[in-house]
């Protein structure tokens, strides 16, 4: 039940990179939420979130809700959320839930940053 094995946070310019490892569910979503809120609370310059889910093996609707919640938070600041490292089973859930309508994906952190620098949001 160590379902969130790791959570690491790093900052580069106006981008917050959060890497999760393990499972994102009812039990672990609050930890993810708290880590993001703690980091951005006193850093209004952080505009965008890149979420690296490479090490995430399980997500359910509670996990999706936590990601959507972060999207809303960054959207309020005028920023965007890009997800990288989606495993096939997690991708399936993103598609089913319609989360792709608001959250973008990229194949790497570099691509995610390039996109965010480009400034153009994906077509919706």
């Amino acid at each position, binding site marked *: 039940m160590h379902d969130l094995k790791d959570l690491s946070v790093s900052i580069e310019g106006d981008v917050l990179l959060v890497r999760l490892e393990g499972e994102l569910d*009812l039990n672990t979503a609050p930890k993810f939420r708290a880590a993001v809120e703690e980091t951005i609370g006193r850093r209004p310059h952080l505009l965008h979130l890149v979420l690296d889910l490479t090490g995430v093996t399980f997500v*359910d609707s*509670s996990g999706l809700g936590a990601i*959507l919640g972060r999207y809303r938070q960054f959207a309020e600041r005028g920023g965007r959320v890009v997800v990288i490292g989606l495993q096939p089973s997690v991708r399936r859930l993103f598609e089913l*839930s319609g989360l792709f309508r608001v959250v973008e994906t990229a194949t790497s952190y570099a691509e995610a940053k390039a996109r965010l620098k480009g400034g153009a949001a994906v077509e919706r």
Partner: protein
Amino acid sequence: MSAEQDPINRFSLSFPGLPANVSFARATVAAFAAQVDQFTLEDLEDIRIAVSEAVSNAVIHAYPQSVGPVEVEVALFPDRLEIKVVDHGRGIPDVEQAKTPTFTTLPGERMGLGLTFVQTYMDEVTISSRPGMGTTVWMVKKLPGTLANGGGGIGTAVGRPAP
């Protein structure tokens, strides 16, 4: 439905509705389901999600102010795996409404997709609830490639010899 035959194997599990037990419950059901050679990894993933959603609902909706008991009962039949998630909590006043995608009584960060996922990922789902008495989510994953899969009704069950 061929509900009257004896299961090949079964278990029942009960635990307090703590958030940490959601992953425990889905891991336990998945470990049991893994004995079924016919299930693909995707089937096991579907089962994990459905159990996770039903148990999460018991934890947060059935017992909003306390930690109440949750029971998970699983039975393996020749043609299907049946899973029941039971709580004795608040109950659901309108089950049809609860099943509607995006309907939730806890806006915040809930998406209202839990029961939708249960229905999407399992082959049969029945939710029964009595306000103040509790909720039972009964769900079935059919074994791929069994006779009954894809429509063998009561005839199939009657024709099958007892195990």
